[in-house]
């Protein structure tokens, strides 16, 4: 149990840090792709942290997977947007 909580914490913190890195990249490049990745990872970090309260049987929780869905959609939208702009 403790190991799982620990791993969850590691994922949460790494997602947070990754999110911040991507925000930094967005500031450097002005490419909104990095902003989208940053937001997606920050959302996932928050999602994991909230999960800690539920500990187990959390991934079936609608709130948990709906938030994750939002993160994926943000990334997919960013990729599609990049390709749409490239071919305009």
């Amino acid at each position, binding site marked *: 149990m403790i190991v799982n909580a620990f791993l969850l914490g590691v994922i949460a913190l790494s997602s947070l840090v990754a999110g911040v*890195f991507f925000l930094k990249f967005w500031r450097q490049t002005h490419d909104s792709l990095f902003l989208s990745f940053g937001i997606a990872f920050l959302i996932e970090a928050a999602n994991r942290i909230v999960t800690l309260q539920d500990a187990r049987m959390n*991934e079936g929780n*609608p709130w948990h997977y709906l938030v994750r869905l939002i993160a994926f959609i943000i990334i997919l939208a960013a990729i599609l947007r990049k390709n749409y702009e490239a071919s305009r």
Partner: protein
Amino acid sequence: MAAAVYILGAVTSLLCGVLLLRGYFGARKKLLLWSAICFIGLALSNFLVFVDLVVLPNVDLYFWRLLTAVLAMLALLWGLIWEGEA
């Protein structure tokens, strides 16, 4: 519904991983390699959630889901820290 989301997540992550791998073989920037490893690992992690919920509901894969995600994120952090510039 939950299963569909995790499959979508696995597919999205896999797509990112494949695009980044392709980019790595083209441009040889290590950031892309580490990022690709991360997204493929996250795809695996999401897929394991699907397996855990749907395919093998009587087997607990929670630890493995978390472990794959941890390794994936650590790979990404490694890449971001060491290869995040030039």
